[in-house]
């Protein structure tokens, strides 16, 4: 992804954050981290609480390649380092939610295969994959999630709808984990296709 779609994503992220700020529960509880990746993952926004968070500019990718394996490995490390688990002396965080936006391709297949089982053990409340482009490749992301959405074009209005949906998912997600270990996400927006 290059050029206009990148800016659309930045605008989409701003929409996400602005709408989460309108949710009193999210405003006091949600933290957000943004990582971009091509050949290497790059954290453009470290895990930050919603109150102080500002969406930075997203750099244009300089290298081609979809190193999804490396990106997910990076996510796993971040989860280990940043998510607080409950202990007698410390209150734990809510289960994190992971949204992966990509074209579905994987250039680093070996690392990807090694990382998927690690990722699955990280206790995400939910992992959602959003595939961008016509004829998306689904078999890779399916290895780590059943929640797959796709958008044909990365135009700004579709991206905006996606992030609005992410916002409602976060609102639902951060308060309903408990007895029914399955977190039920809201239905995806009409502009997007849910891949079953």
């Amino acid at each position: 992804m290059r050029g206009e779609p990148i800016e659309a994503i930045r605008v989409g992220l701003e929409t996400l954050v602005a709408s989460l700020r309108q949710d009193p529960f999210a405003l006091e509880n949600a933290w957000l981290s943004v990582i971009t990746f091509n050949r290497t993952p790059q954290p453009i926004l470290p895990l930050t609480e919603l109150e102080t968070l500002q969406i930075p500019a997203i750099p244009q990718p300089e290298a081609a390649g979809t190193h999804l394996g490396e990106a997910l490995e990076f996510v796993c490390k971040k989860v280990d380092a940043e998510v607080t688990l409950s202990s007698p002396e410390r209150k734990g965080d809510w289960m994190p939610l992971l949204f992966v936006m990509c074209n579905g391709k994987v250039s680093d297949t070996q690392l990807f295969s090694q990382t998927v089982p690690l990722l699955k053990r990280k206790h995400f409340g939910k992992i959602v994959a959003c595939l961008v482009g016509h004829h998306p490749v689904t078999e890779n992301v399916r290895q780590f999630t059943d929640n797959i959405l796709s958008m044909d074009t990365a135009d700004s209005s579709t991206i905006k709808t996606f992030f609005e949906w992410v916002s409602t998912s976060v609102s639902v997600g951060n308060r309903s984990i408990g007895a029914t270990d399955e977190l039920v996400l809201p239905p995806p927006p009409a502009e997007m296709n849910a891949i079953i």
Partner: protein
Amino acid sequence: MEENKEQEIQKEVSAEETPQAEKGETTDSQSENSQQPEEPKMPEITYQTLAILMKNLPNGKVKKEYEAEFDVATLKTEKGNSIASAEFEGLQAVGLDYFPEEKKIKGIPTAAGDHKITIRYKLGDWTDGKPVLLYTFTLIINPDPRVLWNNTPTPETIEYYKPDSDKAFVQAGDKNMAAASQRGRSHAHEGNSRDDDFALHFDTKTDWYALVVADGAGSAKFSREGARIACQTAKEICEAQLSKDGIAEVLDLAIAEYHKDDSDKNRIELYQSLHSEVLAKAAWSAFENIVKEAQAKVEPVKQKEYATTLILSIAKKFEFGWFVGAWWVGDGGIGIYQKENNQVEILGEPDGGEFAGQTRFLTMGEEIFKDRQRTYFKIVKDFTALVLMTDGITDPKFETDANLKRIEKWNALWEDLNGANEDGVKVDFTDDNAQAADQLLRWLDFWSKGNHDDRTIAILY
């Protein structure tokens, strides 16, 4: 290339402006001499956009004092020019201002949103006729979360409807009982039902008190009913068992024996009688009734749809002091608070998981009755209060499992209940105050950042 272009534009602008300015001067001099003066024209100002290199201002919050370091004198444009003077457009509209002497932007933000603030500025070498430059940035002011909460009543037409709040006061024997339960803001915001419940009972024939609180799991569809069934069943079974001839005397005797001699043998006998005949029996019956309800539906559902925690306690006064027994699954807390000797006895252990909101439920059935000891008891001379709470209260007031055992936290809770809080809400625990439950319900409205779950508390005092 771009710099040249910029200069060209500037040239163009000055080419336009200079003659006007000159004309203006001539007009002025003419007006002194001429009889038909032309009306003076306001000098036209032109604007150009040029980015300033600056750090984003930190986000603010409505009604909360804002102060950010900001010094126009040290700013540079993206082309490296220094800035001579600057005005802000949009700052005052949100309750802020720039104070050059203090090098600060400060004030008290009045409106939430992503505000566009424009700096109109002049470069160091600015002279009349040169364009004024503009740079717009975003200043984020967060809303006050307190005003974002909606309070939508739960539709009375839903299955298993229950009122959004409940309270009870029981004046009895040596001590009174008060309980209150309030729907959490996160439920009220979406018009969802309260999932917590409680039950109180004092048996005038046996002098046994029973107090129960339960917290239905937020994610389970019918947990509100699970919590209700759990509380009602547990209360009824305790009541029934404790008035059965064969059981009440045996238990009373076991308690007296244990008080005389706290040997292992006496402890085990007391434990067995209390556990199998009263507490675990009541909890198991509660579980069974939930399963029955789940299966009796036209379209039967899994019992986990009724997932609930349960804290059940019975207490009775003897000549030698008070006996208190408890059975507990899930989070929340129960403690015998003794203010006089600065002590608290926690009757069990909360069930927690790795992440926030994770716990264990009565509806998990058999495993809950096998996994560990859940029946606890204690004999104390006297106590200030026996308190049962759901996690809507323990999360904000105790935060961690370790804190639940700390007397300082209990002292703070007791003072809080007695009026030491920002709203000045006081529960009057004197003997004949029939308003105690109403006061307790009002107290449950306390504000705590990020803690907006249903809250239920039952107190024997």
